[in-house]
């Protein structure tokens, strides 16, 4: 069942991997999202890896994931007829989403100024790598470049080796989700006042917003973190965030202060198996915040080192699922470093019936997807429809929505407009 939240609203999605998630969110919430693709297909169709490593227009995993729920039309914006058609679509739409080079649609005469004359209610959302006014407004930014420009890459990796991005690029997903927020921010007053506006999303700024409390460290503390692998630097002490266990890794926060009960529970558990030192059992952990609230003392550093060594030895005796189960029971602040295989069998996600099945007649099989982004009592979010074939909805959209005859559609195809 389609979600009712945005039922009746239409988005034209011209974006690439900087914006596809925005359209996907709109589709999840019930909007009619039409992927407007150039005759060769949207760039997202070409993103590897592909299902079963078989490249194809309908087999890219990124494409399958983030173009799901949308319809597809082909439209050649470089032809005059194509642009007229686009303007007709815009008159019948509520949102336009694009991530072209800044000024590209303007240069074709179908930028925000032109379109808003045709539809004053229009919300026009442009995703840009570096904004649209600065020295880098025309810069290109592959995902890794945005990750670097926004400061996230600097903090990932080990000393002596290159800084890292994640092995699933993330910057475009942040920009896409941010575009959904921004577009809906403009939607609220538009529905009251009847006037749309232009929305611009800055991808670099979206990455800066993942830096948590680190952004102001240089200004307020005169220091900043460097990449340090499994460690995170505090005040005069590095804390280990990830420990080996028998079959993988565990992430754990060993901290005092308000989280002291977790550390006490960990020490008690270690003591049961003989891994806790005596000083650990008698220590008052409520006041123990080395490198977090105050600079670490020499004593703190000794304690941190011994504690971490003991936790490492302790975890090496167990599997990650067992450690997680015990951690849940004992309310210890830890989590397994899960793989997608672990996620797939997670009991919590299963209990909440999270994953959804999406039939793909295009592939002759069903695929399992991450489910609803949230559970809504009044307007539940269902499973998406599969991602569309290229131009699959040309007839529906150009015929039923714009009222073009079959002959006219055939003619437009013949002259390369669609």
């Amino acid at each position, binding site marked *: 069942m389609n979600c009712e939240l*945005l039922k009746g609203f239409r988005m034209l999605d011209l974006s690439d991997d900087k914006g596809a*998630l925005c359209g996907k969110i709109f589709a999840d919430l019930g909007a009619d999202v039409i992927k407007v693709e150039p005759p060769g297909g949207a760039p997202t169709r070409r993103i590897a890896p592909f299902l079963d490593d078989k490249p194809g227009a309908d087999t890219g995993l990124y494409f399958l994931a983030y173009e799901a729920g949308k319809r597809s039309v082909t439209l050649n914006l470089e032809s005059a007829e194509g642009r007229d058609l686009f303007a007709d679509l815009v008159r019948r739409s509520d949102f336009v989403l694009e991530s072209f080079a800044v000024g590209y649609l303007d240069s074709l005469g179908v930028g925000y100024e032109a379109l808003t004359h045709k539809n004053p209610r229009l919300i026009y959302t442009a995703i840009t790598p570096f904004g649209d*006014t600065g020295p880098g407004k025309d810069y290109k930014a592959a995902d890794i470049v945005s*990750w670097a420009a926004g400061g996230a890459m600097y903090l990932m990796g080990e000393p002596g080796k290159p800084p*890292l991005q994640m092995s699933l690029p993330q910057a475009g997903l942040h920009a896409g989700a941010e575009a959904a927020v921004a577009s809906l921010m403009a939607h609220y007053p538009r529905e009251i006042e009847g006037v749309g506006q232009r929305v611009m999303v800055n991808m670099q700024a979206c990455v800066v917003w993942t*830096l948590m409390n680190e952004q102001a460290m240089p200004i307020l503390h005169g220091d900043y973190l460097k990449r340090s692998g499994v460690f995170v630097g505090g005040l005069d002490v590095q804390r280990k965030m990830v420990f080996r266990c028998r079959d993988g890794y565990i*992430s754990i926060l060993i901290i005092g202060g308000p989280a002291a009960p977790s550390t006490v529970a960990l020490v008690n558990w270690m003591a049961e198996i003989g891994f806790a030192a005596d000083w650990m059992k008698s220590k008052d952990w409520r006041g123990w915040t080395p490198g*977090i609230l105050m600079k670490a003392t020499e004593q703190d550093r000794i304690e941190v080192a011994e504690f971490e060594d003991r936790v490492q030895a302790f975890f090496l005796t167990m599997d990650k699922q067992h450690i997680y189960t015990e951690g849940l029971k004992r309310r210890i602040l830890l989590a397994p470093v899960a793989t997608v295989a672990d996620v797939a069998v997670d009991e919590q996600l299963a209990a909440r019936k999270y994953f959804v099945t999406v039939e793909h007649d295009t592939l002759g099989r069903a695929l399992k997807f991450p489910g609803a982004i949230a559970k809504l009592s009044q307007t539940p979010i269902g499973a998406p429809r599969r991602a569309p074939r290229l131009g699959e909805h040309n007839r529906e959209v150009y015929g039923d929505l714009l009222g073009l005859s079959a002959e006219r559609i055939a003619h437009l195809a013949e002259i390369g407009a669609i």
Partner: protein
Amino acid sequence: MRRYALEGVHVLDFAWVGVGPITTKYLADNGADVIRIESAARIDVLRLGPPWKDAQPGINNSQFFASYNSSKKSVALDLSNPKARSLVQRLVPWADVVTESFTPKAMRNWGLDYEHLRELKPDVVMLSTCLQGQTGPNALYPGFGQLMAALCGFYHISGYDADSAPSPPYGAYTDFIAPRFAAALLLAALDYRRRSGRGQYIDMAQYEAALHFMAPAVIDYFATGRVQGREGNRSQNYAPHGAYRCRDEDGNERWMAIAVADDVEWRGLLSVFGDPVCDKRFATMAGRLENRKALDEFISTQVRDRVAAELTHQLQAAGVSAYPVQNCVDIHHDDNLAAFDFWHWLEHKQMGASPYEGLQHRLSRTPGELRTPAPILGEHSDEVLGGMLGLSAEEIAQLKQERVIF
């Protein structure tokens, strides 16, 4: 015409730490009236988190807290006291939106869960967001976004290869994913309510929302059994693709990210380097992808003595995607963020002028902005309880003496 997108929208915000406050910050910066109900007995842990003004800890001294709480008001109460809860209940009819981010039982124990709130305000939109959701065996899982990032799989896909340990993203990574989904949902739910008269309850598990940033790997695993691992900076879509070390600056390493999407860009990159002789296999994308190691060595050699900022201009002028790997000092001096007017120095009541991250998007007609700095704890207790609930100065003084409000 309105100045801000959300003028007239009222939000009662019980949320704390990261996800909830970042979500309601979107609303507050866009003109909604957001009143944070802060528990003086269980102070928002971010109020205790660094960085602090002059590196001095204090509940009104944290930029960590301040960054996520601009444009909001703060009322401080002891929610474990029934008197405080009855005051809060009197504010509910005012609210269009109620948000909270405790572990599930907290609001229930206080009689402030959706079932109770809708009796006071039938069309309220309520968002509960916790790590693993309101239901299920692990609903009470305690923790922070660092752990959620591990649980979702982000840690596992961060690092050089299967043989080396994960190199996780910094901080509570999923805390910066979930608010985007939560804010989008609240905005859509508010407009739906305006049209239909119906409010609703939103149960957002940060786990479930954040997994959408892992979706291709999740789909792949279910379909083929392939487990996405950590692959360094290797890409199947770009070559070269990675971080390459440039000339050191001020005694520090300086790296830059470069990604080449096709052969046209590749020739652009070579032209910047003066068209040096290179391996013939590099001429095509397929050849570059197959000979990644040699390619990375070639690029590293070309880049090592270059100044990152200059090379960025040159590569971009040649149509190649490139930028320095910036640290937290660099981003405060970045020309593009400056042109976007990203950074804001706001005059905080206790901290004085402090550096706030600005908005990530811009609306042309109703732009949001950081309207006020973050509130100090209980800064608006008198204003809200006196002005909105009509309590007299004597009553407020009495409640303060009883430590019901702060």
